[in-house]
């Protein structure tokens, strides 16, 4: 019984961690290469989820809508970069935070204008609405399993992209020493736009995949954005590998904390007290993890800059 519980919670934490990775990957590249704090990253996640919900309704198919939503969000991201963010690279971090915070507010209101206040329903694709039986006889939601597969596949592709391709080389060069990369003749402007659009597409993928589990609503990006920042701080800013490990760690700590702490407390306290303590302490755990990592490795687990 406990074995099955642990296995199911591990799968849950893997699923959550991989989705966090999709968000953190874009964020860490933008932060690492462009030295730009982009709070509006969560808004791209929201826009991606809304586009996905609308396109899924219009086309009637989850799998047809998914690539369309990714491309559409990438275009939105590229436009945002060209029109606004490009002007912020040379400014200090405070200006960037203020400007991108304004983008969050604008994006929320625009989404509200277009889609209204009601949250949208996005259903899991047909065939993935029920459970599957895993080896060992355990049942698990097939859609969550699909998220794990997609997340792992994207992580692998990103790894190959960054380590094996010319573009990846430029990205790594930009992340470890931007000035030197520019001096070596890298077209940094185009690279930035491409990286930003890629980050936006990853956001849209996370929003689209999480849509059927969570809810497509205004403000959905803000909560998860905080976690994504924790992930990149833990992993080391600018490092894809760091974002991957950090995301899995945060997913693990969050899920296990939520699952196991209440059980532990239930043995010690009455249910009312235990149910108050459990969730509060488990949400603190993530920040304890971050503080511990920063204490021992101030640059994060896998620093991109040498």
């Amino acid at each position, binding site marked *: *019984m*406990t074995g*099955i*519980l642990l296995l*199911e*919670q591990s799968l*849950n934490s893997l*699923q*959550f961690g991989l989705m966090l990775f999709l968000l953190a990957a874009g964020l860490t590249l933008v932060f690492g290469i462009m030295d730009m704090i982009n709070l509006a990253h969560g808004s791209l996640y929201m826009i991606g989820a809304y586009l996905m919900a609308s396109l899924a309704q219009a086309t009637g198919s989850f799998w047809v809508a998914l690539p369309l939503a990714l491309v559409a969000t990438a275009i939105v991201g590229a436009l945002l970069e060209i029109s606004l963010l490009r002007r912020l690279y040379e400014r200090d971090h405070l200006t960037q935070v203020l400007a991108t915070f304004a983008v969050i507010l604008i994006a929320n209101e625009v989404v509200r204008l277009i889609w209204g*206040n*009601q*949250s949208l*329903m996005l259903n*899991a694709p047909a065939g993935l*609405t*029920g*459970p599957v039986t895993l080896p060992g006889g355990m*049942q*698990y*939601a*097939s*859609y*969550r399993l699909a998220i794990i597969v997609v997340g792992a596949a994207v992580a692998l592709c990103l790894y190959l992209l960054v380590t094996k391709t010319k573009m990846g080389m430029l990205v790594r060069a930009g992340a470890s020493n931007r000035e030197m990369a520019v001096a070596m003749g890298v077209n940094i402007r185009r690279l930035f736009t491409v990286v930003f659009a890629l980050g936006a597409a990853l956001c849209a993928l996370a929003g689209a995949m999480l849509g*059927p*589990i*969570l*809810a497509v*609503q205004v403000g959905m990006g803000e909560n998860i954005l905080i976690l994504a920042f924790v992930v990149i701080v833990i992993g080391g800013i600018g490092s894809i590998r760091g974002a991957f490990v950090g995301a899995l760690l945060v997913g693990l700590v969050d*899920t296990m904390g*939520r*699952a196991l702490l*209440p*059980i532990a407390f*239930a043995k010690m306290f009455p*249910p*009312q007290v235990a*149910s*108050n303590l459990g*969730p509060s302490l488990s949400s603190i755990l993530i920040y304890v993890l971050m503080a511990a990592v920063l204490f021992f490795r101030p640059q994060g687990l896998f620093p991109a800059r040498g």
Partner: protein
Amino acid sequence: MRLFWAAAAAALAFHVHAANELKIGYLSTLSGPAGAIGVEIRDGFNLALKMAGGKLGGLPTEVIFADDTLNPETGKQLAERLLKRDRVNLMTGVVFSNVMIAAWPTIQQSKVVYIAPNSTPTSITGAGCNQYFVSAAWPNEGHHEAAGHYAKSKGYKNVYLIAPNYPAGKDSTTGFKRGYGGTIAAEVYTKLNQLDYSAELAQLRAAKPAALYAFLPGGMGINFIKQFVAAGLSSEIPLLVPGFADDQDILRAVGEPMLGIFDTSHWAYDLDNDANRKFVAAFEKEYNRIPSLFAEQGYTTALLIDTAVRSAKGKIEDVPAFHKALMAAPARFKSPRGDWKFAHNGTPVQDYYVRVVAKDNQGRIVNKKIGTVVSGLSDFWAKDCTALK
């Protein structure tokens, strides 16, 4: 000139004395993510008003709607506007308890009677009860207590409870436990507005309870039920919910995955009585959708006002007499929910039914009545109401 003043004085006197018009202040949550419930109640209310030819209690009726947007502060201000500027004779409409608590002092200070179309916190119906309040909905813990009775009657050897960590969530488990009286496998309180229940579902699977009672209102319920079904738990553990958590408004949004869920409710769309058949047919014709229990509450609220105003002969300002007329009204009209009466604190004493989510003969997903759980269940907290007798 003298004639003019005489006429003016007469007109003024006429205006003060004859309550020949009913002005109802309708404060509700009609927009935003939580607006769906308010719209259901309003549509039911408007339907009854329309069927009565726009006259409740035989008086020409004007209903002034105000939308609190689920903001207690706004609700209080709107209540003041309705009472002081529009000078309404009656108040109704509030959906959410936090708005009700904020608006309630203003309403009772204005000496205007309030008729609740949705459940009301026990601070108003229990120790704080008075003659300015009656409810046409259900006592706060009614559905939960009935669900407990149902679990007991099914002989489940233990029940697992899930509710959000806020006052109404704790009321739900209190009410359920009072009706059930058996072993509680576990009591889990989730964060309010939590969306992902993977951790809770894994715990639930490991605990293997005989049944699950979940009170997760609105969007939380939609997510929980979808994930519960996707995890394959619906084939292992019977799910029981309060009737307002899986009614037509939610069924429309979630659909198929909800088939087979049990709930308890004071009303069912296929309840076998003439008043109900008339209500359901008229509602479907008017709005082209199946009514929910919220619509029935709005409809019954309007019928209650209609009956009480008629038997008080329009003298609404005489509060003790009008309160008496209200208390006697349920016996004088037929509500779609069947026969009911008031407890002394102004909350309904009524039957509760168990329903299952199934398809009707047209293939629509509905809540079908499968039996009566408990007859004449009254508000447990009426015992604290000493101001009325």
